[in-house]
Structures are given as C-alpha cells and as structure tokens.
C-alpha cells in the first residue's frame, strides 16, 4: 500500500478492496496532541457528524444513510502517542450492489466532504449553539459513565497514574472540567486551526483514493494552511518504585491492572518482538498467564496482556476474586520473572508466531482491518505492510523476547477492591 503526497501535508493511500462487498473512505486529520484543546477536538467530530449545509437536519442525515443501503458514518477523535487524530469516514455497499445502479461511492465522497468542509453554521458563522449544547451534554455524560465498565476503568486509572502529565496522558475523550468553556466561537476556531495545520491522510478501500484525496486537497486550499510537523513520542520513564493503588467499589469481581515500563521508545523491531512477547505471556489461550494463573492456579477469570507501542509499555489486566488479588498479582509477576530470566522454548515461541502470522494474514480479508493497519503504521512511522510485519514477527528469536521482557519493570498496580475496601487512589 503506497502512500502518496498529493498536496502539502495531504497524503493518500489506496487500500486494495476488489474482493469486498463494501467500499470505505476515511479522512484523518492529525495534529500534535495538546492538553489545552483536547476536549474541543474530542467534541468536534460529534458536532460535525450531526448535519451539514447540504443536509441540515440530523434525522434527514440518518435517513440519507439508510437510503444508501445502511451506509455507515464514522467519526472519532483520539490520541495515539503524542498526536491527536480527528477522523471522519463513510462506507457502505459498492455501487454494483445497488438495486437501481446508483453511484454509491460518489455519494459517500460527497457526504464526507460536505460534513468535513461545509458544516452547518449559524448566521454568525460559527457552529450552531444547539448542536454544541447537545453534544457537550452527551460528552459530559460519556465522561461520567466511565466507571460503568470496571475493566476499562481500572486500566484507565492505572495509565493515568503512570502517564500523569506526559503527552501520553492526554485523555482521548477530553476533560469534564473543560466542557463548560467550549463555545461555538472557540470550537470553530479549533476546527479552522485543525484544517490549517493538520497532516491529512486519505485512505480508501474499494473506491478511488486519488480522486478522493484530490477533492479533499482542493477543499483544503485556503489562506494560512501550513501543516505542522508531528512530534515524536517519548517513552514513559520507569518510575523509581512499583506504585500500588486501590479503590473500593461494590463489585462481585475485582479488577487488577499492572503496567510495566521499559523506558525505551519503540521501533519496528521492538514492535514485532513486543507483539510476540505479549502473545506468549498473556495474549493467547496457550499463554503463560492463561495456562498458569487461570487454568492451573485458578486465580483469575481472565488475564490478558497488551504491548504498548507508544511509550514502550506492557499492560496486564485481570479479573480476580477480591481475596485472590494479591496472589494473582504475585503469580503474574512470577511468570514475568521467568520470561525475564529464561529464554522461551522454541516451540512455545513458534506457537505465538504462528498465531500472529495467521492473524496478520486474516486481517487482509477485512477492509476495516486493512485501513486501520495502514493508517496506524503511518502514525507510528513504521509504514510496514501486513506481510512485512508477518515476516518481521517470523524472525523474532527467544533471545530477543527475553531481552524485551528483561527490560520491563513493574511500574503501577491498580486494583478495584470490593465494597468497603480501602481506597488509596
């Protein structure tokens, strides 16, 4: 998948999609992540995807998508490393599946460009008060509801402790306390600034990416457009000691999250080794944590790991009985220590490699997976294809896994304890 520049700061990638029933177009606007505008940029896509000049009523927009055979409009804003990404996408059936031969792909492109570049504005030339008020309220409720899912809440809390005020600590959905200060004027200013400064990545699968990128680039021609360089992501420093936090909550099952830090930035090689190491430590049903901590010792229901490319971290999260949390923690760390001290047997390594290679190969069967892969590789700066990644993974050695694991230090533990449990978070 070749990435081509079509205008200053505007790139496109044609994702192969001949075999799929659907086609999809995504436009990602990428800027350096900043704490000060995190909430505004988190809110922006929700205001943009309500309506636009051409379709000024939200229900009419929903009905338009349904009339396009259930086309999907996607909008999101999130952080990846030190960058903030604001994305809009439209996808749906290819034209050949339309009942009356309609040009569906052309309508997807029109809709996406209308939403992104021709938003519904007030007479004053800013976003509509009503749209902003509604979406601010929704975002506030979303932020407040994070404790509904205890598993992800526990992981978020652990990351907050480790990342603190670093760029990696900027919250993807923004901050509750910032919402009241967002006005139609300053949100519109953020929107304008985003269009002026963002690196723009256009990805299309099953439709013409170059034509779409040309249209996007034309819409971006404006005085003051000067794309800014994206900052590198610094690794999370290893804290001087393993810090422990707990929070009491009325739950049946406890949650335990351990973050390990390496203090090193990742590169393409570390990415491949990290994926393999994570898979055999806690990413598979044959992994050390699943077999030992869950199946043999019965200390948890789940125990999963994830390698964090940005920041060079490893996350371990587990669902545990409240009275077994300490035992589970000790067992998890004991398995880590084994991998740090002893090279993994070749057959165990091969199992993880086979699984990952199969997963990379399967990803080529999904337009969403292909597009996500291509874009994520661009953000990382590694730019590899799925085949190249499979090849890199296939070359990982027991020594490399041991070295990567040995470089990890348990940094933060966050535990959701039962009702009446002590809170020291």
């Amino acid at each position: 998948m070749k990435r081509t520049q079509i205008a200053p700061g505007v790139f496109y990638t044609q994702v192969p999609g001949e075999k799929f029933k659907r086609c999809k177009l995504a436009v990602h606007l990428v800027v350096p992540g900043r704490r000060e505008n995190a909430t505004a940029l988190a809110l922006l896509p929700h205001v943009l995807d309500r309506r636009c000049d051409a379709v000024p009523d939200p229900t009419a927009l929903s009905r338009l998508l349904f009339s396009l055979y259930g086309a999907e409009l996607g909008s999101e804003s999130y952080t990846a490393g030190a960058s903030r990404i604001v994305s809009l996408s439209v996808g749906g059936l290819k034209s050949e599946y339309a009942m009356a031969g309609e040009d569906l792909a052309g309508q997807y492109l029109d809709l996406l460009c209308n939403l992104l570049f021709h938003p519904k504005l007030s007479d004053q030339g800013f976003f509509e008060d009503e749209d902003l008020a509604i979406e601010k309220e929704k975002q506030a409720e979303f932020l407040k509801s994070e404790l509904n899912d205890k598993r992800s809440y526990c992981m978020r809390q652990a990351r907050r402790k480790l990342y603190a005020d670093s760029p990696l600590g900027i919250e993807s959905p923004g901050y509750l306390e910032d919402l009241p200060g967002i006005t139609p004027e300053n949100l519109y200013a953020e929107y304008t600034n985003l269009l002026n400064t963002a690196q723009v990545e256009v990805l299309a699968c099953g439709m013409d990416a170059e034509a779409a990128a040309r249209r996007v680039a034309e819409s971006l021609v404006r005085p003051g457009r000067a794309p800014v360089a994206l900052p590198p992501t610094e690794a999370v420093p290893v804290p001087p000691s393993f810090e422990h936090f707990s929070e009491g909550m009325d739950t049946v099952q406890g949650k335990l999250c351990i973050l390990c830090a390496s203090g090193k930035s990742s590169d393409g090689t570390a990415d491949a080794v990290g994926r393999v190491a994570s898979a055999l430590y806690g990413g598979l049903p044959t992994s050390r944590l699943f077999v030992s901590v869950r199946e043999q010792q019965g200390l948890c229901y789940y125990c999963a790991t994830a390698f964090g490319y940005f920041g060079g971290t490893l996350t371990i999260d587990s669902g545990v009985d409240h009275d077994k949390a300490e035992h589970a923690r000790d067992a998890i760390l004991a398995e880590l220590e084994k991998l740090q001290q002893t090279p993994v047997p070749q057959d165990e390594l091969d199992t993880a490699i086979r699984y990952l290679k199969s997963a990379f190969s399967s990803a080529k069967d999904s337009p969403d997976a292909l597009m996500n892969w291509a874009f994520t590789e661009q953000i990382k700066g590694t730019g590899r294809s799925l085949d190249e990644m499979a090849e890199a993974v296939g070359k990982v050695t027991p020594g490399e896994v041991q070295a990567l694991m040995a470089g990890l230090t348990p940094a933060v533990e966050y535990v959701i304890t039962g009702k009446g449990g002590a809170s020291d978070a």
Partner: protein
Amino acid sequence: MHKYQLPPAAEKALRFEQVELPNGLVIRLLPMPEYGAVHTIYGTHFGSINRAFEQGGKSVVLPAGTAHFMEHKMFENADGVDAFTLFGETGASSNAYTGFDRTSYIFTATDQLERNLDILLSFVGHPHFTKATVQKEQGIIGQEIGMYEDNPDARSLFGMMECLYHNHPVRDDIAGTVASIAEITPEILYACADAFYNPGNMVLAAAGNLTMKQLLAAVERAGLPAERAPATKRVFPAEPDTVATPRVAIEMPVAMPLFCLGFKEAPVQGSTTKTEVVCDLLCEMLCGDTSTLYRRLYDEGLVQPGFGGEFGCYDGCLQFIFSGESRQPEAVREAIFAEIARQRAEGMDAGQFDICKRMMYGEAIADLESVERVASVLSSSYFRGRTPAEELAVIAAVTLADVEEALHTMLQEDRSAFHLVNPVSE
C-alpha cells in the same frame, strides 16, 4: 424496493453450497477463493433455554447454565491436551460461544485447514468429561458469573427477562448461577452430548478459501456416527401470557440509570422469518436513528447514544426490549408509549419504511463480506430454517400494512415490564 430484482452481483454473493449427510449433519459452505482465511463454525441447536428434554424414553432436567458449562468443557480431550493447544500448533484462532438457543465452536485459520477441521470435529464430536475436570470448571465459571454480575448491561438484560417470564428458561442467565452449576455432573453432560451433540442436531458452516470436497473429507475422517440419532424432544415449561413482575429496580455502581422497557409477545409457531423482519422494522421505525422519537429524546438529553430497540425470538418466547441510559428513565418510558400510540393512531411513515428496508438489504449483503460473518449467517440461518436469499425475499415482500398490523397487536402496555439499574444511593 417495490420490485424485487436483485443485482447480479448480489445474486452471485448469495450462492452457497449445502450437503445433508445420512446422519443428519448439514454442511454449508460459501467458497471465497480470493480470501486468505477460512472461518468454520460447528454449531449445535442447544443453548441455555434447553433445560429439559426427552430421549429414548428418558426425561432429563438440566440445571441453569448447563449448555454454557458444556461449551467450556468440550475443549478438553481425553489425552489431557486441550483443543486450544492443538489449534495453537496450527496458528488458528479458536473460540466458542453459547447463546439462548445454540452453541457454536469456531476457528479461523489461514493454514493447515485439514488439521484444523480434524481438531474441531474431533473435540466437539468426541467429548470427554471427568468429575475432577467438572469440579475445576465450576470454579472458573463461578468467576465468569461474578464478572457478569458486575456488568450493568448484562444485569439489565437478564433482569428484564426475569420480569417478563415466569417459567421460561430465557429468564435465567446463560452462564447459570454458582449454585446451579454446582449441580452439574459428568453424567448430565454426557446425556446432553447424546441428545444435542449428535450430527442430526448440528451444522458445519464454513466460508473462505476451501471446498466442499475438503469439508466432506474431514467429516469422513472424523468418524461421526453413520446413522441419524433418535429425535430429542425439547420440553419447555408452561408460560402464562402475563408478565412475571411489571417493575424492578436495583442499584449498582453506575453513573446514570440504565433502563429496559420490555414487552412479552406471543411465541411464534412455525417459520419465524417474517415475524423477525417485521419486529426488526418495528424497532427501527419506532425509535431507531431514522425515527423522530430518537432524535427528540437524544436532542433533549433524555437518552444517550446506544438507545434503541431490539427483539428476541426463540423457542417458546418472543420479546421486545427498548433500552438505554437516561437520567429520566420514566420520561423515556412514557415517550415510547406515546410514540407507539401516535403511530397506531396516525399510521406509520411510508418513506421511513422504504429506507429501512433498503438498510436491511444493505446489511444483509454487507454480512456476506467477511468469512466470519458469512459462516455465522450460514449457521444462524440454518437453525432458523432458511437461507440468506430467502430472508432477503421476505424483506422485499413485507409491506407497511404488515408492520402496522403488528404494531396494533404487539407492544401492549399490559404485557410490558420496566427494569431499572440505578446508581448506588448515597
């Protein structure tokens, strides 16, 4: 969608192969030679609601959670090597899931297809249970049950089922309870294997880069019974028309109340396809994204994203559930009833009906894109007694009058229940 003529590309996408063996096993395949992966489902028509049966003159009653428990135990082989390990040797990813009315064992692989098919057909076809492994699993599933008890969405759904049903097993959590699974023994599991894991009760559905010849050869190697097993009679308790409990509220650590408004409908006899299509349209037209009710509730801050309606249609039961998060759940409940009354009085929107049918056509075709979804569609449509093409034909044939008629008979307030999960009071 007034005239039903599928585009040639859609006609082609819907073509799949089916073979039924003398032992009753049905094999469905949609070859997708341009894909790298293969997804295979070996499914049985046995889920959490199958809690009593008769076979060979014997009556068996099962504790809640048996089907799900069995799904966990099937991965263990007699030689002590579990199926996950065997799949790991080929690089395949494997899993299983239990629903109300079926259990499915799956793998996705890009390599060693014959070997993966052999593993799948072997561990599901030749179960092995011991007292010791059953006891160990009771602890693991006990933890899973604990996890779901903390999940407000799961508590809300099963809380609603308990409100709607007096006796039907759909009211019980799919995983059962710690107490109910403690009653499970190897003998119970072997009885279930005989009754429900015989080929005549199962489907092997696959999609991807493989052929029917490969599937038939794998089935041949698996050594499955050659003869069709005696029929199993599924037994369901008598269920009154009324709801069991019209209103329940519980407290959990959540930020905002979760509500469920449920309606108990008469179960469908015979083919369910048309009823399912009509129910789907009813949900969408009343409170889906294209409805005026959804927009009003959303914009007035009465509901959050995720609000919507869905239906469930299983042996002996049919229900609607409208659910979401709201700081004013009672107001949402009233608004839904008001919208039902308004559409009954004023009639439903023909334009909205037409685009909802277009959306359903689009979803059905999009479902034929990934090997995972295709195999899933082939399996689920088999258990519903239809093909994907037949479902599309029903979507095309359903009229606005059909939906309006259903609106007048279904969604009655005296057969509704309301379940709330409130934040823990200070």
